[in-house]
């Protein structure tokens, strides 16, 4: 006697999907590897430094200055990145124009370029002599605002990389927004500018928050171009990432780790704040 099964009327046997446990084990196992690595890294840092190291770090004016400069420059470069990345991402997403692939490739270059090379390129750009004219000289003497080895150089170095990430994020954001909606707005009486500002932009808030977050995070981690183009003058152009490097280079490992943990705290607070703002805006 055959047992009752779920085979079809035509005699095709029922599928036997089997257990989902191996799937969850594989996915969970692989995912937890990375999460565990991050947790271990942070734990190792925490265990390495003592409370005294933190006290010393918090009482060092040089660190506080680097903290302040980091916070300000990262925020300014993130805002600038979103400001520039939004229209550029929109143009690349919506329009086909001759040479678009060149623009597309150019804006990706800072992502793949070694950071030191980017800093060197910035330095060369500002000091290249064209006849009698030099950009840095012109900024110093005519505009009254020198850039190289000053705080604007920190922002420019951060912006050069962060903006590329912002453009990429905004482009994907606009790719996911139905262009037909802007088309309909144009039939209702909008010009392209109004359709962008009143229809596309309000839909892109989530992407703008994401672009700002990624630009801010990239700016925080920026180190090579800043060191080359802005230097690491204490209380002037020294940011937390350069502080870690300088402390490490003179053998003050405890100070370097204490500052690193401060950066972790700063990053977590800012990312949480941005997420909160994003949740509010999209609520």
């Amino acid at each position: 006697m055959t047992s009752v099964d779920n085979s079809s009327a035509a005699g095709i046997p029922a599928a036997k999907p089997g257990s989902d446990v191996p799937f969850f084990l594989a996915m969970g196992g692989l995912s937890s590897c990375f999460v565990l690595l991050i947790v271990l890294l942070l734990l190792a840092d925490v265990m390495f430094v003592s409370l005294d190291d933190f006290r010393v770090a918090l009482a060092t004016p040089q660190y506080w200055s680097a903290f302040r400069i980091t916070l300000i420059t990262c925020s300014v470069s993130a805002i600038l990145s979103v400001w520039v990345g939004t229209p550029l991402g929109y143009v690349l997403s919506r329009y086909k124009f001759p040479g678009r692939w060149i623009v597309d490739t150019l804006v990706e270059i800072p992502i793949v370029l070694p950071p030191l090379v980017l800093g060197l390129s910035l330095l060369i750009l500002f000091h290249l002599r064209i006849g009698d004219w030099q950009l840095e000289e012109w900024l110093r003497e005519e505009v009254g605002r020198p850039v190289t080895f000053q705080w604007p150089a920190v922002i420019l170095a951060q912006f050069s990389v962060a903006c590329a990430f912002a453009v990429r994020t905004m482009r994907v954001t606009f790719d996911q927004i139905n262009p037909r909606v802007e088309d309909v707005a144009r039939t209702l009486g909008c010009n392209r500018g109004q359709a962008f500002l009143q229809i596309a932009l309000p839909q892109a808030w989530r992407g703008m928050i994401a672009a700002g977050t990624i630009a801010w995070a990239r700016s925080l981690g920026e180190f090579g171009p800043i060191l080359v183009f802005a230097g690491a003058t204490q209380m002037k152009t020294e940011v937390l990432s350069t502080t870690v490097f300088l402390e490490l280079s003179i053998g003050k490992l405890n100070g370097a780790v204490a500052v690193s943990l401060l950066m972790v705290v700063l990053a977590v607070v800012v990312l949480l704040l941005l997420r909160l703002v994003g949740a509010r805006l999209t609520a």
Partner: protein
Amino acid sequence: MIDLRDVSIVSGQFSLQQISLSVKAGEYAVLMGQTGQGKTTILEAICGLRKVTGGRILIQDVDVTGRSPGDRGIGYVPQDLALFPTMNVRQHLEFALQLRRQKKAKIDSLTADLSRTLGIEHLLSRAVQGLSGGESQRVALGRALSFQPSVLLLDEPFSALDEATRSEMHALLKTVTNTTGVTTLHVTHSSDEADALANRRFVLNKGVIEEPELQSRTDGAN
């Protein structure tokens, strides 16, 4: 009225050459044809979203061929409706009027009238995400008619609706187009829809627009 005179449209590999079509003021015309023939392309060309490479497009006897979409006075309902995700229903109905810098009192009164006609007064403060298929259609139709255009273009707007809702929408469209006297060109696959709504029927076949005799239409239905 809508008048296409020898209009040519090229889009990548696809092209339509010397298309002509004329719909008189106040008429309700349907444009039928198999998928991929270019019906949507023609509607997009009429409302200015697609450039034409030759010929002329006249709306109410005015040559609008070189005009921007917003300067043609055409209400357009695309197949996917393309409602504005960040606006509520009221904002959809007010959008075109605000662009035309109408006074608030006038906007309020026109919006109230239109929402009553379309049966969506109770939805005015609702976000568009939670609307049903039929409600979304009404909002898209209301948005297209909000600035009282002389021409209305509909691109298979009811293809995703169930039978009952579609019949409701047919009745509503008939009332609205009769009341406003708007000249309508409606792209559809459905002969029933054409029978229910249209007094003109065009068929786009292999790049040529034909207007079959009423007799052949009846034969086809049988």
